[in-house]
């Protein structure tokens, strides 16, 4: 499997190292002399100087016989050009583009580059995942603020899903009341089985909220 990687920045560099470890044949192309020199010191002749957004540069890198081309520059427009040259001109079977604007995933797909990957999306998802575990929303308090009525949406890997409520170990100072699921209201009893995306309404003591949150949402990885 011969892979041409265009862009010798951090992403291209670390990708190349992964590919070499997995015994792929790789050429890494970059158009900065100093960068090429630095990379060559460590990785040798697989590092090539050239312009990956030009047909000539890609030709020199052996794109005619490449199986995959990966565009890892920091600029989405350059990565689009690299992948399109690769696929259309050199008939490379597979092109993979790095993108920084997540909206370009759709744009690239419509323009013929079906695999466009953004680190931004991965970061955003990690954030959403973390935030989702932080939140028991307080609907109201009563008994002089000692008791809270709370609501939360269960996540994919919540510890309480797909088990009967009677099988769960719940904190003593709370009670699970209702599930709102797909527009339906379900009164919770011992036989109820919680599912991801369920909106759970519960009552807890003020101090017991944290334990309840961890029980329902799991421990967030810091």
């Amino acid at each position, binding site marked *: 499997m011969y892979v041409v990687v265009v862009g010798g920045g951090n992403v291209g560099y670390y990708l190349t190292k992964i590919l070499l470890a997995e015994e792929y044949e790789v050429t890494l192309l970059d158009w900065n002399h100093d960068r090429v020199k630095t990379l060559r010191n460590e990785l040798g002749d697989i590092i090539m100087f050239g312009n990956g*957004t*030009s*047909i*000539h540069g890609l030709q020199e890198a052996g794109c005619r016989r490449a199986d995959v081309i990966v565009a890892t520059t920091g*600029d*989405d*427009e*350059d990565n*689009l*050009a690299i992948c*399109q*040259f690769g696929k*259309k*001109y050199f008939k490379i079977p597979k092109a993979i583009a790095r993108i920084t*604007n997540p*909206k*370009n995933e759709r*744009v690239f797909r*419509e*323009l013929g580059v079906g695999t466009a990957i953004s680190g931004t999306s991965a970061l955003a998802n990690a954030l959403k995942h973390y935030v989702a575990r932080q939140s028991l929303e307080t609907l109201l308090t009563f008994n002089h603020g000692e008791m809270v009525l709370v609501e939360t949406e269960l996540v994919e890997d919540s510890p309480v899903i797909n088990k009967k409520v009677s099988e769960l170990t719940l904190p003593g100072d709370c009670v699970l009341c209702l599930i709102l699921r797909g527009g339906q209201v379900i009164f919770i009893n011992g036989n109820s089985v919680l599912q991801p995306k369920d909106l759970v309404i519960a009552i807890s003591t003020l101090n017991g909220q944290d334990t309840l949150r961890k029980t329902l949402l799991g421990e967030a990885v810091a």
Partner: protein
Amino acid sequence: MKIIIVGCGRTGIYMANELVQKGHEVTLVDINSAAFDKMDKNLPVRRIIGTGIDEDVLIRAGIKEADALFALTKGDNTNAMIGQIAKFIYKIPKVIVRMADYQSKQFYEEYLDLSCYCPSVISAQNYLEFLGETQY
């Protein structure tokens, strides 16, 4: 006609002036607000600051209603992406992009059906015509 020009350099400004005189509605997009300082402040064109490869910017520039789009930035790859978004995603009838590299122009025209204009080749041809007409 509703016309969008991305890349407000000398060419873009010249075209904007001509088009406005002929009664067309022109929107200029440039990533750098300073570009708009080089033109007459009173020229009735819409000025959008932003990058043309961002769909949201193009939508603000009125791409959904545009009849023509010119991509005239300094970057061939940027122009190619803008042109393709305009032609193939938003189906703008008239799209042409500036392509400094001649080999790239040939590629985009042949393989991606994107009209390109290569200034250096056209300039060279004009210069050579001039030489041809001179008696020496």
